[in-house]
Protein backbone atom coordinates (compact mmCIF):
# COMPACT_ATOMS: atom_id res chain seq x y z
CA UNK A 1 0.00 0.00 0.00
CA UNK A 2 1.14 3.56 0.58
CA UNK A 3 4.71 3.90 1.69
CA UNK A 4 4.29 7.00 3.84
CA UNK A 5 1.77 6.57 6.64
CA UNK A 6 -1.05 9.05 6.32
CA UNK A 7 -2.37 11.26 9.09
CA UNK A 8 -5.50 9.13 9.02
CA UNK A 9 -3.66 5.86 9.64
CA UNK A 10 -1.53 7.38 12.39
CA UNK A 11 -4.59 8.75 14.18
CA UNK A 12 -5.82 5.21 14.70
CA UNK A 13 -2.62 3.23 15.11
CA UNK A 14 -0.50 5.53 17.24
CA UNK A 15 -2.52 6.07 20.45
CA UNK A 16 -2.46 2.38 21.36
CA UNK A 17 1.21 2.09 20.42
CA UNK A 18 2.18 5.11 22.51
CA UNK A 19 0.08 4.01 25.48
CA UNK A 20 1.53 0.48 25.52
CA UNK A 21 5.08 1.72 25.00
CA UNK A 22 4.83 4.31 27.75
CA UNK A 23 2.81 2.37 30.31
CA UNK A 24 3.55 -1.28 29.52
CA UNK A 25 6.90 -1.79 27.83
CA UNK A 26 8.67 1.07 29.51
CA UNK A 27 7.70 0.09 33.10
CA UNK A 28 8.85 -3.48 32.39
CA UNK A 29 12.14 -2.21 30.99
CA UNK A 30 12.44 0.08 33.98
CA UNK A 31 12.40 -3.02 36.22
CA UNK A 32 15.71 -4.04 34.65
CA UNK A 33 17.29 -0.70 35.52
CA UNK A 34 15.71 -0.75 38.96
CA UNK A 35 17.28 -4.10 39.78
CA UNK A 36 20.70 -2.41 39.68
CA UNK A 37 19.75 0.49 41.92
CA UNK A 38 20.82 0.68 45.53
CA UNK A 39 18.95 1.58 48.70
CA UNK A 40 20.61 3.84 51.24
CA UNK A 41 18.91 5.30 54.29
CA UNK A 42 15.59 3.97 53.04
CA UNK A 43 16.02 5.92 49.80
CA UNK A 44 16.37 4.32 46.40
CA UNK A 45 19.03 5.84 44.22
CA UNK A 46 20.02 5.25 40.61
CA UNK A 47 23.15 3.15 40.52
CA UNK A 48 24.78 0.29 38.70
CA UNK A 49 25.41 -2.25 41.37
CA UNK A 50 24.84 -5.99 41.24
CA UNK A 51 24.31 -6.13 44.99
CA UNK A 52 20.59 -6.95 44.69
CA UNK A 53 21.20 -9.84 42.32
CA UNK A 54 23.94 -11.22 44.55
CA UNK A 55 21.85 -10.81 47.71
CA UNK A 56 18.78 -12.52 46.32
CA UNK A 57 20.58 -15.29 44.44
CA UNK A 58 22.74 -16.21 47.40
CA UNK A 59 19.76 -16.87 49.64
CA UNK A 60 18.52 -20.40 49.96
CA UNK A 61 15.08 -19.02 50.88
CA UNK A 62 14.82 -17.62 47.37
CA UNK A 63 15.81 -20.85 45.64
CA UNK A 64 13.45 -22.88 47.85
CA UNK A 65 10.66 -20.52 46.89
CA UNK A 66 11.70 -20.65 43.23
CA UNK A 67 11.59 -24.41 42.95
CA UNK A 68 8.44 -24.69 45.04
CA UNK A 69 6.68 -22.18 42.78
CA UNK A 70 7.92 -24.00 39.69
CA UNK A 71 6.75 -27.33 41.06
CA UNK A 72 3.34 -26.01 42.13
CA UNK A 73 2.73 -24.28 38.80
CA UNK A 74 3.80 -27.37 36.83
CA UNK A 75 1.64 -29.63 38.97
CA UNK A 76 -1.23 -27.19 38.49
CA UNK A 77 -0.80 -27.15 34.69
CA UNK A 78 -0.66 -30.95 34.44
CA UNK A 79 -3.45 -31.73 36.91
CA UNK A 80 -5.80 -29.08 35.55
CA UNK A 81 -5.15 -30.13 31.94
CA UNK A 82 -5.87 -33.76 32.83
CA UNK A 83 -9.03 -32.84 34.75
CA UNK A 84 -10.23 -30.54 32.00
CA UNK A 85 -9.64 -32.86 29.07
CA UNK A 86 -12.49 -35.38 29.59
CA UNK A 87 -14.88 -32.45 30.07
CA UNK A 88 -13.62 -30.60 26.99
CA UNK A 89 -13.71 -33.79 24.95
CA UNK A 90 -17.29 -34.46 26.00
CA UNK A 91 -18.35 -30.85 25.31
CA UNK A 92 -16.72 -30.81 21.90
CA UNK A 93 -17.67 -34.30 20.69
CA UNK A 94 -20.73 -35.40 22.63
CA UNK A 95 -22.92 -32.32 22.98
CA UNK A 96 -25.22 -30.79 20.39
CA UNK A 97 -24.54 -27.36 18.93
CA UNK A 98 -26.97 -25.64 21.26
CA UNK A 99 -25.74 -27.33 24.42
CA UNK A 100 -22.17 -26.57 23.35
CA UNK A 101 -22.94 -22.85 23.01
CA UNK A 102 -24.61 -22.81 26.40
CA UNK A 103 -21.70 -24.60 28.00
CA UNK A 104 -19.27 -22.03 26.59
CA UNK A 105 -21.45 -19.21 27.91
CA UNK A 106 -21.63 -20.81 31.35
CA UNK A 107 -17.85 -21.27 31.44
CA UNK A 108 -17.31 -17.59 30.66
CA UNK A 109 -19.34 -16.46 33.71
CA UNK A 110 -16.55 -17.14 36.26
CA UNK A 111 -14.31 -14.60 34.51
CA UNK A 112 -16.67 -11.89 35.71
CA UNK A 113 -16.77 -12.95 39.31
CA UNK A 114 -14.16 -11.69 41.69
CA UNK A 115 -11.37 -14.21 42.16
CA UNK A 116 -10.85 -12.84 45.70
CA UNK A 117 -14.44 -13.53 46.64
CA UNK A 118 -14.19 -17.07 45.29
CA UNK A 119 -11.02 -17.67 47.28
CA UNK A 120 -12.65 -16.32 50.43
CA UNK A 121 -15.61 -18.60 49.83
CA UNK A 122 -13.25 -21.56 49.35
CA UNK A 123 -11.71 -20.79 52.75
CA UNK A 124 -15.12 -21.34 54.28
CA UNK A 125 -15.53 -24.63 52.42
CA UNK A 126 -12.06 -26.00 53.11
CA UNK A 127 -11.30 -24.93 56.68
CA UNK A 128 -10.97 -27.54 59.43
CA UNK A 129 -14.47 -26.90 60.78
CA UNK A 130 -15.70 -25.85 57.36
CA UNK A 131 -18.52 -27.00 55.15
CA UNK A 132 -16.67 -29.77 53.34
CA UNK A 133 -15.38 -31.32 56.57
CA UNK A 134 -18.80 -31.00 58.22
CA UNK A 135 -20.30 -32.76 55.22
CA UNK A 136 -17.67 -35.49 55.31
CA UNK A 137 -18.34 -35.78 59.03
CA UNK A 138 -21.94 -36.80 58.29
CA UNK A 139 -20.50 -39.60 56.17
CA UNK A 140 -18.24 -40.64 59.03
CA UNK A 141 -15.05 -39.38 57.34
CA UNK A 142 -12.38 -36.85 58.15
CA UNK A 143 -11.79 -34.22 59.24
CA UNK A 144 -9.05 -33.60 56.69
CA UNK A 145 -6.68 -30.68 56.70
CA UNK A 146 -7.35 -28.96 53.38
CA UNK A 147 -6.31 -25.39 54.11
CA UNK A 148 -2.85 -23.88 54.51
CA UNK A 149 -1.13 -26.60 52.52
CA UNK A 150 -0.41 -27.45 48.90
CA UNK A 151 -3.87 -28.96 48.51
CA UNK A 152 -5.39 -25.58 49.31
CA UNK A 153 -3.06 -23.79 46.92
CA UNK A 154 -3.79 -26.19 44.07
CA UNK A 155 -7.53 -25.98 44.70
CA UNK A 156 -7.25 -22.21 44.38
CA UNK A 157 -5.22 -22.49 41.17
CA UNK A 158 -7.87 -24.81 39.78
CA UNK A 159 -10.63 -22.30 40.58
CA UNK A 160 -8.63 -19.69 38.70
CA UNK A 161 -7.59 -21.79 35.68
CA UNK A 162 -10.09 -24.60 35.12
CA UNK A 163 -12.73 -22.59 33.20
CA UNK A 164 -10.09 -21.04 30.92
CA UNK A 165 -8.36 -24.37 30.28
CA UNK A 166 -11.64 -26.11 29.43
CA UNK A 167 -12.58 -23.28 27.06
CA UNK A 168 -9.20 -23.30 25.27
CA UNK A 169 -9.29 -27.09 24.99
CA UNK A 170 -12.83 -27.00 23.60
CA UNK A 171 -11.83 -24.43 20.98
CA UNK A 172 -8.89 -26.52 19.84
CA UNK A 173 -10.92 -29.75 19.85
CA UNK A 174 -13.60 -28.05 17.76
CA UNK A 175 -10.98 -27.66 15.02
CA UNK A 176 -10.20 -31.38 14.91
CA UNK A 177 -11.29 -32.71 11.55
CA UNK A 178 -14.31 -34.91 12.23
CA UNK A 179 -13.58 -36.98 9.10
CA UNK A 180 -10.34 -38.14 10.68
CA UNK A 181 -12.24 -39.41 13.70
CA UNK A 182 -14.79 -41.08 11.46
CA UNK A 183 -12.02 -42.69 9.42
CA UNK A 184 -10.37 -44.01 12.56
CA UNK A 185 -13.64 -45.57 13.65
CA UNK A 186 -14.20 -47.10 10.23
CA UNK A 187 -10.83 -48.73 10.49
CA UNK A 188 -11.91 -50.27 13.77
CA UNK A 189 -9.74 -48.05 15.87
CA UNK A 190 -10.96 -48.30 19.47
CA UNK A 191 -12.42 -45.35 21.30
CA UNK A 192 -9.53 -44.74 23.64
CA UNK A 193 -7.00 -45.29 20.88
CA UNK A 194 -8.83 -42.77 18.67
CA UNK A 195 -8.58 -40.19 21.42
CA UNK A 196 -4.91 -40.88 22.11
CA UNK A 197 -3.66 -41.33 18.56
CA UNK A 198 -5.97 -39.18 16.44
CA UNK A 199 -7.68 -36.48 18.49
CA UNK A 200 -4.92 -35.49 20.90
CA UNK A 201 -2.18 -35.25 18.24
CA UNK A 202 -4.34 -33.12 15.94
CA UNK A 203 -5.38 -30.79 18.79
CA UNK A 204 -1.91 -30.83 20.34
CA UNK A 205 -1.07 -27.16 19.80
CA UNK A 206 -4.24 -25.92 21.51
CA UNK A 207 -3.95 -28.40 24.37
CA UNK A 208 -0.36 -27.38 25.08
CA UNK A 209 -1.28 -23.68 24.92
CA UNK A 210 -4.13 -24.30 27.39
CA UNK A 211 -1.68 -25.98 29.78
CA UNK A 212 0.74 -23.10 29.28
CA UNK A 213 -1.93 -20.62 30.33
CA UNK A 214 -2.60 -22.64 33.49
CA UNK A 215 1.14 -22.58 34.19
CA UNK A 216 1.46 -18.83 33.63
CA UNK A 217 -1.59 -17.98 35.76
CA UNK A 218 -0.56 -20.30 38.61
CA UNK A 219 3.07 -19.19 38.51
CA UNK A 220 2.13 -15.55 38.95
CA UNK A 221 -0.83 -15.86 41.32
CA UNK A 222 -0.27 -14.70 44.89
CA UNK A 223 -3.80 -15.01 46.25
CA UNK A 224 -4.22 -18.79 46.38
CA UNK A 225 -0.81 -19.62 47.86
CA UNK A 226 -1.32 -16.86 50.43
CA UNK A 227 -4.93 -17.32 51.53
CA UNK A 228 -5.43 -21.02 50.79
CA UNK A 229 -1.85 -22.26 51.01
CA UNK A 230 -1.03 -20.33 54.16
CA UNK A 231 1.75 -18.26 52.59
CA UNK A 232 4.49 -19.97 54.53
CA UNK A 233 6.83 -20.99 52.99
CA UNK A 234 6.23 -18.30 50.37
CA UNK A 235 6.05 -18.55 46.60
CA UNK A 236 7.84 -16.05 44.37
CA UNK A 237 4.77 -13.88 43.89
CA UNK A 238 4.20 -13.71 47.66
CA UNK A 239 7.85 -12.71 47.99
CA UNK A 240 7.31 -9.82 45.58
CA UNK A 241 4.25 -8.52 47.41
CA UNK A 242 5.99 -8.89 50.79
CA UNK A 243 9.16 -7.11 49.71
CA UNK A 244 7.28 -4.35 47.91
CA UNK A 245 4.73 -3.66 50.60
CA UNK A 246 7.13 -3.82 53.53
CA UNK A 247 9.56 -1.10 52.56
CA UNK A 248 11.84 0.39 50.03
CA UNK A 249 13.62 -2.76 48.87
CA UNK A 250 11.95 -2.55 45.47
CA UNK A 251 15.22 -3.29 43.62
CA UNK A 252 15.25 -6.73 45.24
CA UNK A 253 11.62 -7.30 44.32
CA UNK A 254 12.63 -6.34 40.77
CA UNK A 255 15.24 -9.11 40.78
CA UNK A 256 12.60 -11.65 41.78
CA UNK A 257 10.19 -10.29 39.15
CA UNK A 258 12.81 -10.43 36.38
CA UNK A 259 13.69 -13.99 37.34
CA UNK A 260 10.00 -14.85 37.05
CA UNK A 261 9.74 -13.21 33.64
CA UNK A 262 12.83 -15.07 32.39
CA UNK A 263 11.37 -18.36 33.64
CA UNK A 264 7.99 -17.68 32.07
CA UNK A 265 9.55 -16.75 28.72
CA UNK A 266 11.67 -19.91 28.74
CA UNK A 267 8.71 -22.11 29.57
CA UNK A 268 6.48 -20.34 27.03
CA UNK A 269 9.02 -20.69 24.20
CA UNK A 270 9.64 -24.33 25.03
CA UNK A 271 5.91 -25.04 25.16
CA UNK A 272 5.18 -23.24 21.89
CA UNK A 273 8.05 -24.97 20.16
CA UNK A 274 6.77 -28.29 21.42
CA UNK A 275 3.20 -27.42 20.45
CA UNK A 276 4.03 -26.64 16.83
CA UNK A 277 6.64 -29.30 16.31
CA UNK A 278 5.77 -31.52 13.37
CA UNK A 279 4.04 -34.68 14.45
CA UNK A 280 6.07 -37.86 14.31
CA UNK A 281 9.50 -36.37 14.84
Amino acid at each position, binding site marked *: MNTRPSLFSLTFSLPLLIWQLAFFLFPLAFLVALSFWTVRNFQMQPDFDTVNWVKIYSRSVFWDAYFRTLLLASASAVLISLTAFPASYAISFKLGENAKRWMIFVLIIPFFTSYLVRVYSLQVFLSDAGILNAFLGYLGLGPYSMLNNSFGTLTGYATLCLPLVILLQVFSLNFVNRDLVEAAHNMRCGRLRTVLEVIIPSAKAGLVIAGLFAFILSFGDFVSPLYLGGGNPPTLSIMITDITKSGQQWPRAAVVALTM*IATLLTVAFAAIKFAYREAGK
Partner: protein
Amino acid sequence: MTGNRNPLINGLLKLHITLCLIFIFTPIAGSFVFSLNSDRFPSLPLGSFSTEWYRLIWEDPLVWAGFFNTLLVGACVAAIATLLGFGGAYTDFRYKFFGKPVYLALALLPPTIPVVIMGLAMLAFLSRVSLSGNVISVIIAHGVMCSPFAMAIIRLRLSQMDPDLEAAAWNLGGNEWVTMRHVIIPFTKPAIYAALFITMAVSFDEFAVAWFVSGLNETLPVKVLGFLQGQVSPRINAIGSLAFVSSISFIVIAQILMRNPESKPS
Protein backbone atom coordinates in the same frame (compact mmCIF):
# COMPACT_ATOMS: atom_id res chain seq x y z
CA MET B 1 -21.74 -38.54 14.65
CA THR B 2 -19.29 -41.23 15.65
CA GLY B 3 -19.76 -44.92 15.08
CA ASN B 4 -19.30 -46.32 18.54
CA ARG B 5 -21.65 -45.08 21.19
CA ASN B 6 -21.30 -46.46 24.62
CA PRO B 7 -23.97 -45.16 26.99
CA LEU B 8 -21.86 -45.94 30.05
CA ILE B 9 -18.85 -43.94 28.85
CA ASN B 10 -21.02 -41.08 27.61
CA GLY B 11 -22.78 -41.01 30.96
CA LEU B 12 -19.47 -40.91 32.81
CA LEU B 13 -18.25 -38.08 30.58
CA LYS B 14 -21.37 -36.06 31.27
CA LEU B 15 -21.00 -36.75 34.98
CA HIS B 16 -17.46 -35.42 34.72
CA ILE B 17 -18.70 -32.20 33.08
CA THR B 18 -21.20 -31.82 35.89
CA LEU B 19 -18.52 -32.34 38.54
CA CYS B 20 -16.29 -29.71 36.90
CA LEU B 21 -19.18 -27.25 36.83
CA ILE B 22 -19.98 -27.98 40.49
CA PHE B 23 -16.34 -27.36 41.39
CA ILE B 24 -16.31 -24.08 39.46
CA PHE B 25 -19.64 -22.72 40.66
CA THR B 26 -19.81 -23.92 44.27
CA PRO B 27 -17.57 -21.11 45.59
CA ILE B 28 -19.60 -18.56 43.62
CA ALA B 29 -22.95 -19.86 44.85
CA GLY B 30 -21.49 -20.31 48.33
CA SER B 31 -20.53 -16.67 48.52
CA PHE B 32 -24.15 -15.68 47.77
CA VAL B 33 -25.47 -17.99 50.46
CA PHE B 34 -22.89 -16.89 53.05
CA SER B 35 -23.68 -13.25 52.37
CA LEU B 36 -27.23 -13.84 53.59
CA ASN B 37 -26.21 -15.99 56.53
CA SER B 38 -25.89 -14.86 60.14
CA ASP B 39 -22.76 -16.91 60.92
CA ARG B 40 -19.36 -15.33 60.85
CA PHE B 41 -17.82 -18.73 60.11
CA PRO B 42 -20.54 -20.53 58.18
CA SER B 43 -20.56 -24.30 58.45
CA LEU B 44 -23.10 -27.09 58.32
CA PRO B 45 -25.82 -26.70 59.49
CA LEU B 46 -26.14 -23.15 58.19
CA GLY B 47 -27.17 -20.32 60.49
CA SER B 48 -30.26 -18.19 60.07
CA PHE B 49 -31.13 -15.76 57.31
CA SER B 50 -29.68 -12.32 57.84
CA THR B 51 -29.03 -9.14 55.88
CA GLU B 52 -26.59 -7.96 58.53
CA TRP B 53 -23.54 -8.02 56.23
CA TYR B 54 -25.30 -5.92 53.62
CA ARG B 55 -26.28 -3.42 56.32
CA LEU B 56 -22.66 -3.25 57.50
CA ILE B 57 -21.28 -2.46 54.06
CA TRP B 58 -24.14 -0.02 53.42
CA GLU B 59 -23.10 1.91 56.51
CA ASP B 60 -19.37 1.77 55.88
CA PRO B 61 -18.19 5.09 54.39
CA LEU B 62 -14.93 3.46 53.25
CA VAL B 63 -16.87 0.94 51.19
CA TRP B 64 -18.78 3.79 49.57
CA ALA B 65 -15.56 5.68 48.86
CA GLY B 66 -14.14 2.53 47.30
CA PHE B 67 -17.29 2.05 45.30
CA PHE B 68 -17.12 5.55 43.83
CA ASN B 69 -13.42 5.12 43.03
CA THR B 70 -14.20 1.85 41.28
CA LEU B 71 -17.00 3.48 39.30
CA LEU B 72 -14.82 6.42 38.30
CA VAL B 73 -11.92 4.18 37.32
CA GLY B 74 -14.22 1.78 35.47
CA ALA B 75 -15.85 4.54 33.42
CA CYS B 76 -12.55 6.17 32.46
CA VAL B 77 -10.88 2.84 31.71
CA ALA B 78 -13.80 1.73 29.55
CA ALA B 79 -13.60 4.92 27.47
CA ILE B 80 -9.80 4.88 27.14
CA ALA B 81 -9.42 1.16 26.51
CA THR B 82 -12.19 1.16 23.91
CA LEU B 83 -10.72 4.14 22.04
CA LEU B 84 -7.24 2.60 22.05
CA GLY B 85 -8.63 -0.84 21.22
CA PHE B 86 -10.68 0.51 18.33
CA GLY B 87 -7.59 2.16 16.85
CA GLY B 88 -5.58 -1.02 17.24
CA ALA B 89 -8.31 -3.22 15.76
CA TYR B 90 -8.79 -0.94 12.77
CA THR B 91 -5.02 -0.77 12.20
CA ASP B 92 -4.81 -4.56 12.20
CA PHE B 93 -7.85 -4.81 9.90
CA ARG B 94 -6.79 -2.24 7.35
CA TYR B 95 -3.00 -1.98 7.17
CA LYS B 96 -0.02 -4.16 6.45
CA PHE B 97 3.23 -2.62 7.56
CA PHE B 98 6.76 -3.44 8.62
CA GLY B 99 6.85 -4.51 12.25
CA LYS B 100 3.16 -5.35 12.45
CA PRO B 101 3.75 -8.54 14.51
CA VAL B 102 5.63 -6.44 17.06
CA TYR B 103 2.80 -3.92 17.10
CA LEU B 104 0.25 -6.67 17.70
CA ALA B 105 2.38 -8.35 20.35
CA LEU B 106 2.74 -5.09 22.23
CA ALA B 107 -0.99 -4.48 21.96
CA LEU B 108 -2.14 -7.94 23.05
CA LEU B 109 0.51 -9.19 25.50
CA PRO B 110 -0.39 -7.36 28.75
CA PRO B 111 -2.91 -9.97 30.01
CA THR B 112 -0.22 -12.68 29.92
CA ILE B 113 2.13 -10.83 32.29
CA PRO B 114 1.55 -11.92 35.92
CA VAL B 115 -0.28 -9.20 37.81
CA VAL B 116 2.28 -8.99 40.62
CA ILE B 117 4.97 -8.17 38.08
CA MET B 118 2.72 -5.65 36.31
CA GLY B 119 1.90 -4.17 39.70
CA LEU B 120 5.52 -3.84 40.76
CA ALA B 121 6.63 -2.42 37.40
CA MET B 122 3.76 0.07 37.35
CA LEU B 123 4.35 1.13 40.95
CA ALA B 124 8.08 1.61 40.46
CA PHE B 125 7.60 3.51 37.19
CA LEU B 126 4.61 5.63 38.15
CA SER B 127 6.07 6.65 41.49
CA ARG B 128 9.18 7.79 39.59
CA VAL B 129 7.07 10.14 37.50
CA SER B 130 4.96 11.12 40.54
CA LEU B 131 1.78 9.50 39.28
CA SER B 132 1.42 6.70 41.83
CA GLY B 133 -0.91 6.57 44.80
CA ASN B 134 -3.93 8.06 43.13
CA VAL B 135 -6.85 7.19 40.94
CA ILE B 136 -5.06 8.24 37.74
CA SER B 137 -2.42 5.58 38.28
CA VAL B 138 -5.09 2.88 38.50
CA ILE B 139 -6.69 4.22 35.31
CA ILE B 140 -3.35 4.13 33.48
CA ALA B 141 -2.62 0.58 34.60
CA HIS B 142 -6.10 -0.70 33.82
CA GLY B 143 -5.94 1.02 30.43
CA VAL B 144 -2.94 -1.15 29.61
CA MET B 145 -4.63 -4.32 30.86
CA CYS B 146 -8.07 -3.76 29.31
CA SER B 147 -7.31 -2.39 25.84
CA PRO B 148 -6.36 -5.87 24.48
CA PHE B 149 -9.87 -7.07 25.33
CA ALA B 150 -11.48 -4.10 23.61
CA MET B 151 -9.23 -4.62 20.61
CA ALA B 152 -10.10 -8.31 20.32
CA ILE B 153 -13.85 -7.65 20.51
CA ILE B 154 -13.80 -4.88 17.90
CA ARG B 155 -11.40 -6.79 15.63
CA LEU B 156 -13.81 -9.72 15.67
CA ARG B 157 -16.61 -7.47 14.48
CA LEU B 158 -14.46 -5.88 11.78
CA SER B 159 -13.65 -9.32 10.42
CA GLN B 160 -17.37 -9.76 9.75
CA MET B 161 -17.34 -6.68 7.54
CA ASP B 162 -17.05 -6.99 3.80
CA PRO B 163 -13.67 -5.37 3.03
CA ASP B 164 -15.14 -4.05 -0.25
CA LEU B 165 -17.61 -1.95 1.71
CA GLU B 166 -14.93 0.55 2.62
CA ALA B 167 -13.56 0.68 -0.94
CA ALA B 168 -17.09 1.20 -2.23
CA ALA B 169 -17.53 4.19 0.04
CA TRP B 170 -14.27 5.67 -1.24
CA ASN B 171 -15.39 5.15 -4.85
CA LEU B 172 -18.56 7.00 -4.02
CA GLY B 173 -16.42 9.98 -3.12
CA GLY B 174 -16.15 9.71 0.66
CA ASN B 175 -12.67 10.36 1.96
CA GLU B 176 -11.20 8.16 4.68
CA TRP B 177 -12.55 10.28 7.54
CA VAL B 178 -16.08 10.39 6.15
CA THR B 179 -15.99 6.66 5.47
CA MET B 180 -14.82 6.04 9.01
CA ARG B 181 -17.68 8.08 10.39
CA HIS B 182 -20.47 6.82 8.18
CA VAL B 183 -19.43 3.24 7.40
CA ILE B 184 -16.92 1.76 9.84
CA ILE B 185 -18.13 3.25 13.12
CA PRO B 186 -21.83 2.45 12.53
CA PHE B 187 -20.90 -1.08 11.54
CA THR B 188 -18.74 -1.68 14.63
CA LYS B 189 -21.09 0.14 17.01
CA PRO B 190 -22.41 -3.00 18.76
CA ALA B 191 -18.84 -4.19 19.33
CA ILE B 192 -17.85 -0.75 20.60
CA TYR B 193 -20.62 -0.85 23.21
CA ALA B 194 -19.73 -4.43 24.09
CA ALA B 195 -16.08 -3.41 24.51
CA LEU B 196 -17.10 -0.54 26.78
CA PHE B 197 -19.04 -2.82 29.10
CA ILE B 198 -16.58 -5.72 29.10
CA THR B 199 -13.54 -3.54 29.81
CA MET B 200 -15.52 -1.91 32.60
CA ALA B 201 -16.32 -5.33 34.04
CA VAL B 202 -12.65 -6.35 33.86
CA SER B 203 -11.59 -3.16 35.62
CA PHE B 204 -14.30 -3.70 38.26
CA ASP B 205 -12.73 -7.00 39.34
CA GLU B 206 -9.06 -6.19 39.04
CA PHE B 207 -7.48 -5.96 42.47
CA ALA B 208 -3.78 -6.82 42.26
CA VAL B 209 -2.34 -4.06 40.11
CA ALA B 210 -4.79 -1.60 41.64
CA TRP B 211 -3.57 -2.67 45.08
CA PHE B 212 0.04 -1.95 44.13
CA VAL B 213 -0.52 1.48 42.62
CA SER B 214 -3.61 2.92 44.29
CA GLY B 215 -2.10 4.03 47.59
CA LEU B 216 -4.84 5.42 49.81
CA ASN B 217 -7.39 5.80 47.01
CA GLU B 218 -8.51 2.21 47.13
CA THR B 219 -10.97 0.74 44.70
CA LEU B 220 -13.55 -1.70 46.00
CA PRO B 221 -11.64 -4.89 45.03
CA VAL B 222 -8.58 -3.54 46.86
CA LYS B 223 -10.83 -2.93 49.86
CA VAL B 224 -11.89 -6.58 49.65
CA LEU B 225 -8.25 -7.64 49.63
CA GLY B 226 -7.86 -5.56 52.79
CA PHE B 227 -10.80 -7.35 54.43
CA LEU B 228 -9.24 -10.67 53.43
CA GLN B 229 -5.94 -9.72 55.10
CA GLY B 230 -7.60 -8.44 58.24
CA GLN B 231 -10.18 -10.18 60.35
CA VAL B 232 -12.51 -12.70 58.77
CA SER B 233 -15.59 -10.88 57.61
CA PRO B 234 -18.54 -12.07 55.55
CA ARG B 235 -18.80 -8.49 54.29
CA ILE B 236 -16.58 -9.79 51.48
CA ASN B 237 -19.42 -12.02 50.39
CA ALA B 238 -21.92 -9.17 50.41
CA ILE B 239 -19.62 -6.95 48.35
CA GLY B 240 -18.77 -9.84 46.06
CA SER B 241 -22.42 -10.69 45.46
CA LEU B 242 -23.25 -7.08 44.58
CA ALA B 243 -20.17 -6.79 42.34
CA PHE B 244 -21.09 -10.06 40.62
CA VAL B 245 -24.62 -8.89 39.93
CA SER B 246 -23.36 -5.62 38.46
CA SER B 247 -20.66 -7.32 36.37
CA ILE B 248 -23.17 -9.80 35.00
CA SER B 249 -25.57 -6.95 34.20
CA PHE B 250 -22.79 -5.33 32.16
CA ILE B 251 -22.15 -8.57 30.30
CA VAL B 252 -25.83 -9.14 29.58
CA ILE B 253 -26.16 -5.57 28.29
CA ALA B 254 -23.06 -6.12 26.14
CA GLN B 255 -24.54 -9.38 24.81
CA ILE B 256 -27.82 -7.72 23.92
CA LEU B 257 -25.98 -4.90 22.16
CA MET B 258 -23.82 -7.38 20.25
CA ARG B 259 -26.98 -9.06 19.00
CA ASN B 260 -28.51 -5.78 17.85
CA PRO B 261 -30.49 -7.06 14.85
CA GLU B 262 -30.45 -3.91 12.73
CA SER B 263 -26.70 -4.00 12.35
CA LYS B 264 -26.40 -7.72 11.79
CA PRO B 265 -24.42 -8.70 8.72
CA SER B 266 -26.73 -10.08 6.04
